[in-house]
């Protein structure tokens, strides 16, 4: 495990009211994830993987306990500060790509840079670089509808990586892809992890994804049941 801790969770509890009762999605989770890790949160559906990603990604706050991401205490952030943390430091990759259909591949990748206020020249260079990482330079001017599933997910990776975030959160990134495309995507992310030292945190129950993980944290009923480093 590397020295610098990017994520630090201590006694993290996340509970939701369900009807008259309370459903506890995460139970006293404590873990640390360091810079440059390539880690998977694995477990069956309902085990709390996505909820944990939500909290780490500052999309949600803990019910109790503490989560620190890049020195920011998630539970203490305002909505605006949380948005800023995500904008500056966190990239997201979703199962369903979520590309904006009216924009080209290049424009989709460019979008996070617009929010960061980068200049036109900077954006152009950074988009070109990100598309090169994922091997889609030739398709920069295409629309998402013209791409295959694998290519769409590579655009989503480029969009997540273009601002060179410290942390990328990926929720079931290969769920909609066939085996060949899944491996291609994972190899791309593995390469970016190695080249840019970006921390990747996956939520998955896909065996193919797990093969690539250097650390696997297993969750069951909201609790960490195993934490193994390969």
């Amino acid at each position, binding site marked *: 495990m590397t020295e610098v801790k990017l994520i630090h969770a201590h006694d993290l509890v996340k509970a939701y009211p369900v009807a008259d009762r309370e459903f506890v999605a995460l139970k006293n989770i404590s873990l640390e994830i360091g810079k440059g890790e390539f880690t998977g949160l694995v477990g069956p559906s309902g085990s709390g993987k996505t909820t944990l990603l939500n909290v780490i990604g500052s999309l949600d706050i803990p019910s109790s306990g503490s989560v620190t991401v890049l020195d920011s205490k998630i539970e203490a952030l305002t909505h605006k500060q949380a*948005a800023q943390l995500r904008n500056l430091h*966190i990239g997201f990759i979703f199962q369903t790509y979520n590309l904006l259909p*009216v*924009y080209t591949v290049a424009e989709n990748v460019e979008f996070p840079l617009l*929010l960061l206020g980068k200049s036109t020249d900077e954006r152009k260079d950074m988009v070109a670089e990100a598309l090169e990482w994922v091997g889609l330079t030739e398709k920069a001017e295409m629309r998402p509808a013209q791409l295959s599933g694998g290519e769409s997910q590579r655009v989503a990776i480029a969009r997540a990586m273009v601002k060179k975030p410290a942390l990328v959160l990926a929720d079931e990134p290969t769920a909609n892809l066939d085996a060949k495309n899944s491996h291609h995507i994972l190899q791309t992310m593995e390469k970016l992890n190695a080249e840019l030292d970006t921390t990747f945190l996956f939520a998955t129950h896909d065996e193919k994804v797990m093969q690539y993980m250097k650390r696997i944290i297993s969750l069951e009923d909201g609790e960490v049941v195993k934490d193994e480093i390969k």
Partner: protein
Amino acid sequence: MIKFLIAGVLRDRSRSLFPILTVFIGTAITVLMAGYIGGVMPDMIRMSAHLDAGHVKVTSQGYFEDRTQMPLDMALEDAEEIIVRLENQFPDMMWKARTRFGGLLDIPDENGETKAQTTVSALAADLITPGSTELDYLKIRSSIQNGSLPSDAFDIIISQSMAESYGLAIGDRVTLMSSTINGSMSFQNFRIAGTVVFGVTALDKGGAIFTDIEGARMSLDMEGGSTEILGFFKDDEYTGERAQIVTNWINSNMSVEGDPYSPIAFRFEDVNEFAAMMQWAGAFIFIISGVFIAIMFIVLWNSGLMNGLRRYGEVGLRLAIGEAKGHVYRSMLVESTLIGTIGTIFGTILGLFFVYLLQEYGVDISGMGISDTGNGIYYPDVIRGKIIPACFYIGFVPGIIAPFLGALVSGRGIYKRQTASLFKELET
């Protein structure tokens, strides 16, 4: 970012086409209405002033009180003296004596026996003095169908429809039976000099005849008098403020309180129902704008709500990757302003085109009876719009405000969106 939004709006037809069309249509109608009012109102004011009210009307106090009965005995006996005084006092105006009176027109057959009789409403004005504007103000010169302009004090002009109804020809002589200023009977022969078609149903269909003021004075025993004096600004541009100065002076310096024979002056808009009509016309364009703002707002609000559902994923993604809710909301407002601007520009162009057509070709409303108001308000039978400065900018009021309000209301949902469930929402 703006460039990015413009690209999105233009490429996503379902996001832009319907709202732009809504704004386009609403704006075009607003501009058309502005051009319609801009054309019709000045025409109506000019025509009604020339034919009936003047920019300033002076009568005796008693005549004004009973004006519907046209009481000749309450005429201004010293009208010519008053005119001289007013011309000296207000050199930017011209003053014209007119007399309105009623009578019975006796139409003889070839043997000189009465063939027919009809009631007529006569208007006497200066029709034979060289250079008199009355032939133009009363539209006689431009409306002559047959015959010629009056050349003698006892020449009359009648409507073409009256001539046809009674088989009257140019040069025929008719007798007008009326009463003098003193109440005695008056019989005067007149020669039909010409017939007119004004294009104003109220004049063309009614029993109106026009005669020279001097002929009328002799016939009615009212030397130097008239029932009314009309003042016209020489530039023919009426404003209530200018007229108010004139009426204030006349009423302060010439009117004697309690003397029914002393003059009293009124502005154009204070005669008949012009004031209410002018206020209504002034407010009309704002009412139209308001109506279209309301309609477009409701349509675009709903469109915004539907768009919000359709773009649920996009907004979720933007929130997830770190765009603040306020920024997303503001970008929606910018988008709506863009849509409003595009729709307004094209709507204004279309509206101007329609106003141009209305200006050049007009719409004949003579068959609708609208011009026959019967209260001194005259519309031309062919209404024409006019491209006025307001046509170029009035559309921007509803065109920008409505989409903005629509987005303002429909976009509030962004603030209700919980980021906590974004991962799940974005994966369905």
